C-alpha cells in the first residue's frame, strides 16, 4: 500500500464528511451571519434606571428651565422643563445640545499656564497662587486700579462675586460685555434714571413693532420669544418688522418693512414725531414726562419730518405715518429695540428712540406692554472690607465705559496702565468688532487670567487659564433678563460631577481672594461658593431649593414711571458705518449659531445651511439686483476698512439692494475641528465706531466693496 492521490482524497473526503455531520457547519453558518452584523467598535450605551434632574440653562441670557434625562446617573438628554416660568417646556437647539459642551474637544481640562508661547498644565493650587502673587504685587505697589475685569454680564451671584472682589481689591475697572440686558439697562437709565431695566410682555401684546429685533433669531429669551411669536394667531396679535433683510423674524411677521441699515433710530424718531403731531400720545402717562419734553417735540418735528426720514430710511412716508398711527391705536402696543440678538454693537440713540415710542403711547407697566422696573436685586452681598489701598484704588477714575473703549485707550497709549486683566466667561477677542485690535491691546497687558471652560480666542491670549465647570457641572443662580417680561431666578444645579479638573467660577474667585489674605480674605469669609450663594440669596433660597426657581415680581411693576427726554432732545448723532465702499455689510444673527460664549456645539453647526457655510467657505448674501457681474455661488473678495476676506456669493431676494449680509459666529480660530476653521468671523471686517452717548461700539455694519476673486 502506498500513499497516493487517492489517500489524500480519502483524507479530504473523510474530513469533509466528519465536519458535515458534526454541528460545526450549522453553528458556524449561524454565528458567522451574526458576526457580520457585529461592529464591536461602535459604542453600546449602558442601560439603567431613568431619572430626571431639573436645572437652568445659562448658555445664553434666555435662562430656560431644563430637564436632564439620566441613565444610572449619566446624563443623556437635555430637554425644556415643563412649567418653568420662562420657557414652559420647549428648548432651543443650543440647550438641547448642551451635553456636547461637557465633552467638547476644546474644553480646558486642567489649569494652564503659558510659558513662552505654550500652555503647560499646572495644579489648581499653583495656578491660584500664581494669580494671587501677581494681584498681590499690584496691591503692594498701591496700584490696585491697574487690575481690570471683564465679565459676560453683571447679573447673578458669580458676577456679584467679581464685583465684590473688585471692590475689596480696589479697582473700579469692572466691565461687562455688551449684551441685550446691558443695552436695555442703558436705555432705561437714560430715560427713567439709573437702576432701571426694561421688560416686554410679548405674550400679551397685540401689536409688536420690532426695529430689527430678531424675535425668532435669538433676541431676548429665545424660547419665550418663539412662543410669543407662534402664539400670535390665537391672540390676533400683529408683528411688524422693520429690517434691511428678510430674516426669519421678518418672514414670520405679518408685515416686513425693509429699512436702510442704521436708520432705525431716525425712523423711530419720525414716528415719535407723527404721534406728537397727531396728538396720539397718552396724556395720563405724559404727566411723568420731564427733562425737555417740549424741546424733544420741537426737535423731532424739525429734524425728523416724515418725508425726509422716508428718503433716509427707504420706508415710504405713508407707511411711516400709517404704522405710527396703527401702533398708537393698538390696545397693547410694544416697540422693540435691539437689532438681531440685541447684543454686541447697538446704538443707545436707537434704543432710546424706540423705547420713547413705548413711553409716548403710555403702554407702560400694563398687561401686554413694556415693563419699566427697578433692578430686582435679590442678592444681598455684605459690604466688602476695604483697606486704604482699596479705597484709594476705588477713588481712581474708571478707565473706560466699555471693553472697546478700554482697548482703544490701551492701543493709543505707549504702555498699558492696566497690568492685570481677568476675563470671565467672555470672548472679547472674538465677539467684538475688529477683534484683532482687541488682541493687540490684550497683548500689551502684562498678565491676563481667563476663567473659561473652553480654549477660545481670548483664552489663547491669556497667561493663566482657570478651567471653569460648565453650566451642567456647577451650581449657580440664573436670573432672567434680556427683556423677559417676568422676573425669575432659576437655580442651576450640577447634574453631573465635573468631567475634568474644573471648578466653579465662584469658588475660584473666593480662593484667589483667600490667597491674597488681608482684607480680601476678610471680605470672602465663605467656605465655598455654595455657602456664599445660600447666604447672599437667603431671601429666595427656600424657593430655589424647593422648586428650582423663585419668582421675584408678579405680575408687573407698579411704581410710577417718569420719562426724561433730555438725552434725545439734544438730538445725538446717528452712527455712520466706517468706509467709502459701494455696499453696506451687516452681520446676520442666526439662531443656529452662537456669537459669544460658548461657541456653537457640533450639533448646532450641523444644522447650519449649506448656503451659509460650505466646506470652509462662507457665503455673503447679496440681492441679485445689485450683483451685476457676479455669479450665484461664485467666489468674491470682500474688502472693508478693517480687512478683506474671500467668500462666496449667495443670491438672496430677501436682502435690500445695496446691502450685503454675513452670518455672525463663524470663523473661529481654535482647536475644534467640528466648529472652528469654518468661514470668516464677520467681526474681523467691521471697524468699531464708539457712540458718544454710550461710550460703546455702535457699528451696526461697515461699508464694503466686492470684487470677483
Amino acid at each position, binding site marked *: *500500500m502506498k500513499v497516493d492521490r*487517492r489517500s489524500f482524497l480519502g483524507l479530504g*473526503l*473523510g474530513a*469533509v464528511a466528519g465536519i458535515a455531520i*458534526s454541528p*460545526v457547519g450549522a453553528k458556524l453558518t449561524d454565528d*458567522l451571519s451574526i458576526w457580520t452584523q457585529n461592529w464591536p467598535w461602535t459604542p453600546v450605551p449602558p442601560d439603567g434606571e431613568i431619572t430626571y434632574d431639573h436645572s437652568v440653562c445659562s448658555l445664553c441670557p434666555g435662562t430656560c428651565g431644563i430637564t436632564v434625562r439620566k441613565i444610572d446617573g449619566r446624563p443623556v438628554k437635555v430637554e425644556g422643563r415643563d412649567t418653568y416660568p420662562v420657557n414652559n417646556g420647549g428648548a432651543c437647539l443650543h440647550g438641547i445640545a448642551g451635553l456636547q459642551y461637557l465633552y467638547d474637544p476644546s474644553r480646558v481640562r486642567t489649569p494652564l499656564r503659558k510659558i513662552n508661547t505654550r500652555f503647560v498644565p499646572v495644579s489648581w493650587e499653583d495656578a491660584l497662587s500664581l494669580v494671587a502673587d501677581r494681584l498681590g504685587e499690584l496691591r503692594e505697589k498701591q496700584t490696585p486700579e491697574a487690575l481690570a475685569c471683564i465679565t459676560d454680564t453683571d447679573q447673578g451671584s458669580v458676577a456679584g462675586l467679581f464685583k465684590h472682589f473688585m471692590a475689596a481689591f480696589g479697582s473700579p475697572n469692572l466691565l461687562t460685555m455688551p449684551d441685550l440686558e446691558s443695552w436695555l439697562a442703558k436705555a432705561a437709565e437714560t430715560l427713567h434714571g439709573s437702576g432701571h431695566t426694561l421688560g416686554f410682555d410679548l405674550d400679551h401684546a397685540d401689536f409688536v413693532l420690532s426695529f430689527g429685533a430678531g424675535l425668532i433669531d435669538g433676541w431676548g429669551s429665545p424660547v419665550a420669544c418663539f412662543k410669543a411669536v407662534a402664539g400670535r394667531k390665537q391672540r390676533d396679535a400683529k408683528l411688524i418688522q422693520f429690517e434691511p433683510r428678510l430674516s426669519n423674524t421678518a418672514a414670520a411677521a405679518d408685515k416686513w418693512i425693509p429699512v436702510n441699515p442704521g436708520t432705525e433710530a431716525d425712523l423711530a424718531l419720525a414716528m415719535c414725531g407723527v404721534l406728537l403731531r397727531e396728538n396720539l400720545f397718552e396724556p395720563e402717562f405724559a404727566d411723568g414726562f420731564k427733562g425737555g419734553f417740549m424741546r424733544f417735540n420741537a426737535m423731532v418735528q424739525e429734524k425728523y419730518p416724515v418725508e425726509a426720514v422716508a428718503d433716509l430710511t427707504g420706508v415710504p412716508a405713508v407707511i411711516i405715518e400709517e404704522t405710527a398711527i396703527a401702533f398708537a391705536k393698538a390696545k397693547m402696543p410694544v416697540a422693540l429695540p435691539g437689532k438681531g440678538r440685541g447684543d454686541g454693537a447697538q446704538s443707545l440713540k436707537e434704543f432710546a428712540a424706540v423705547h420713547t415710542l413705548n413711553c409716548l403711547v403710555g403702554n407702560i407697566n400694563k398687561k401686554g406692554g413694556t415693563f419699566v422696573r427697578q433692578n430686582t436685586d435679590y442678592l444681598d452681598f455684605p459690604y466688602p472690607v476695604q483697606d486704604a489701598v482699596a479705597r484709594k484704588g476705588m477713588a481712581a477714575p474708571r478707565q473706560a465705559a466699555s471693553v472697546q473703549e478700554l482697548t482703544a485707550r490701551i492701543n493709543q497709549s505707549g504702555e498699558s496702565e492696566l497690568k492685570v486683566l481677568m476675563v470671565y466667561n467672555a470672548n472679547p477677542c472674538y465677539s467684538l468688532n475688529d477683534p484683532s485690535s482687541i488682541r493687540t491691546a490684550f497683548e500689551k497687558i502684562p498678565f491676563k487670567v481667563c476663567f473659561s471652560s473652553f480654549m477660545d480666542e481670548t483664552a489663547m491670549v491669556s497667561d493663566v487659564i482657570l478651567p471653569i465647570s460648565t453650566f451642567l457641572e456647577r451650581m449657580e443662580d440664573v436670573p432672567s433678563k434680556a427683556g423677559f417680561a417676568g422676573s425669575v431666578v432659576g437655580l442651576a444645579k450640577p447634574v453631573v460631577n465635573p468631567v475634568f479638573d474644573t471648578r466653579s467660577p465662584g469658588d475660584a474667585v473666593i480662593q484667589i481672594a483667600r490667597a491674597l489674605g488681608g482684607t480680601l480674605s476678610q471680605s470672602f469669609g465663605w467656605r465655598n461658593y455654595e455657602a456664599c450663594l445660600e447666604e447672599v440669596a437667603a431671601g429666595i433660597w427656600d424657593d430655589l431649593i424647593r422648586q428650582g426657581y423663585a419668582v421675584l415680581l408678579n405680575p408687573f411693576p407698579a411704581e410710577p414711571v417718569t420719562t426724561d427726554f433730555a438725552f434725545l432732545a439734544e438730538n445725538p448723532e446717528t452712527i455712520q458705518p466706517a468706509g467709502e465702499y459701494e455696499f453696506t455689510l451687516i452681520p446676520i444673527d442666526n439662531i443656529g449659531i452662537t456669537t459669544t460664549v460658548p461657541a456653537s456645539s457640533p450639533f448646532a453647526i450641523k444644522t447650519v445651511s449649506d448656503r451659509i457655510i460650505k466646506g470652509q467657505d462662507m457665503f455673503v448674501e447679496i440681492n441679485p439686483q445689485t450683483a451685476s457681474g457676479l455669479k450665484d455661488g461664485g467666489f468674491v473678495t470682500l474688502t472693508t476698512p478693517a480687512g478683506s476676506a474671500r467668500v462666496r456669493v449667495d443670491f438672496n431676494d430677501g436682502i435690500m439692494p445695496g446691502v450685503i449680509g454675513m452670518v455672525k459666529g463663524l470663523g473661529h480660530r481654535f482647536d475644534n475641528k467640528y466648529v472652528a476653521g469654518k468661514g470668516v468671523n464677520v467681526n474681523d471686517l467691521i471697524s468699531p465706531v464708539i457712540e458718544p452717548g454710550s461710550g460703546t461700539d455702535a457699528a451696526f455694519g461697515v461699508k464694503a466693496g466686492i470684487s470677483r476673486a
Partner: protein
Amino acid sequence: MSEIENKTEHGSMDGATACAAGDPKNDTGLGLGVIFFIVAFLICFLSGWLLFPKLLYSKHEQPFNFDHVLHVEEAGSCDACHFLREDGTFSGIPKMVSCLECHTDEPMGDTPDELIFAREYVAKEREVPWFVYAKQPDCVFFSHAAHINAAGMDCKTCHGPIGETRTSRPYEENRLTGYSRDIWGKNIWGIKKNSWDRMKMNDCAKCHEQETGHKGYCFQCHK
C-alpha cells in the same frame, strides 16, 4: 446521519472506480484511502462534536459564587431583587444599592464568597461586574413588563430554574458573535427541550405567533 455517510462513501468509491477504470493495474491505494478517510472522518467528527464547542466559547467565572436558593429563601421571590421599576423598565441584575438593603460590609455568612463580596465590592463601593447569562445584543429591545404584567408569564419560562441554583455556572461567551451561550442554548445543535433552552429571534417569534397570532413587527423587539 448514516445516509450522509453512505452517500459520502459512495462518492468516494465512485471516484475510486473511475480512477481504477483509467488505470486497472494500480488499485492498491484504495485501501489506504479508506483508512485515511476513516481516520480523517473520526478526527473531524469528534472534534466537531467535542472540541469545537470548547473552542467556540470562552468561559468566564462569575466574580464570586451566588447562591440563588439562599436569597430566594431570605428575600421571598425573584422580584424582590429583579423588579420592574415604577416607570415600567426592568431593573435587571441588582445594583449594589439593592444588595445593601440587607448586606453591610461585614460578611453575613462564613462562605468565602461572602468575604469577597464584602471586602472587594461593598467596602470598596464597587458594583459587582456580574456576567449576564440572558444578555441580548444591543439591537434588541425586550420588555419585561409586557411579558410579566401583560402576558402573565413567570420568570422560569425564559430564564429556567436559575432561582433553584446554589452555585453560579461559568458564563460562556461565543468568540465569534460575542453572545452568551444561553442565546443559542447549551446544546451545540441548538436543540431545545425546555422553553428556556434557547433565546433566539425565532423562539420569540414562535411564542408570539402562538400567543398573539402574529410574529410581531421589527420595531416591537428591535431598536
